[in-house]
């Protein structure tokens, strides 16, 4: 391989990043920090896609395009999430998850 770094190292870094994101997702109570943890999770999956694509299927581009689409989905998810967070802030004047415990209908 032209890299000199084994595939496993990339996946281990992505694994640590993924589980750090899960930790933040479970322990944080502020909505924006929960959103940041989910960005960490999505990003670690992207690293996996690209490392597998480069090392195991170098003649194809499936992982490359899949992570491109994941980035687009993450961008639209962040936009909608921040709109929801701002409208929650208008209603409750803070953005802790405990306040948001009922739906409108």
């Amino acid at each position, binding site marked *: 391989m032209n890299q000199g770094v084994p595939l496993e190292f990339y996946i281990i870094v992505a*694994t640590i990043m993924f589980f750090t994101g899960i930790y933040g997702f479970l322990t944080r109570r502020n909505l924006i920090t929960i959103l940041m943890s989910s960005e960490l999770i999505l990003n670690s999956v992207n690293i996996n896609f690209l490392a597998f694509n480069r090392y195991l299927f170098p003649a194809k581009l499936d992982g490359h395009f899949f992570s491109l689409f994941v980035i687009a989905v993450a961008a639209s998810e962040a936009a909608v999430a921040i709109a929801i967070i701002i409208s929650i802030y208008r209603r409750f004047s803070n953005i802790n998850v405990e306040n948001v415990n009922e739906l409108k209908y």
Partner: protein
Amino acid sequence: MEGNQIMFAVFAIVIIVFSVLTVTSRKILRAAVSLLFVLIATAGLYFLLNYQFLAAVQLTLYAGGIVVLIIFSILLTSQISHKFEPIEWKKALFTALAVIGGAIVVITTILKHTFAADTAAALEVNMNVIGKSLLGTGTDGYVLPFEVISVLLVAAMIGAIVIAKKGSPVRDEEKNK
């Protein structure tokens, strides 16, 4: 050690340290800046893997777009000097145990598995190839997900505007009366 091994080590350490800081920092703006460093180091990993286009997309869209969006919403919704209360130790301990257990299971599985590397010649990823695949309808074409993702982006943007544009809280209270 070769150059790219050193660079990989640097990026890996930056990613791990700053992702831990992102989820543990008690000041929200510091957490956002740590997230920015994680995303930039991830773009560095993409450069190491020779995916220049995706690294550029990562830098502009994630590090440039999403982090700025997050920092804007932090400035709109919280005081900068505000510090989060520390997490209850029980919650932190049990979550950490679950997370570390999961990480150990996954890492041992990865290290046990032998990956069968493909010996096919590496495809050079330049803009020509990317554009042709993104709009191609053949075996390596991605025109359907491309169109679906454009519709999703438009829908998300319109939805974001509609959600964030609701009336002021005073008017909502009047309506409830």
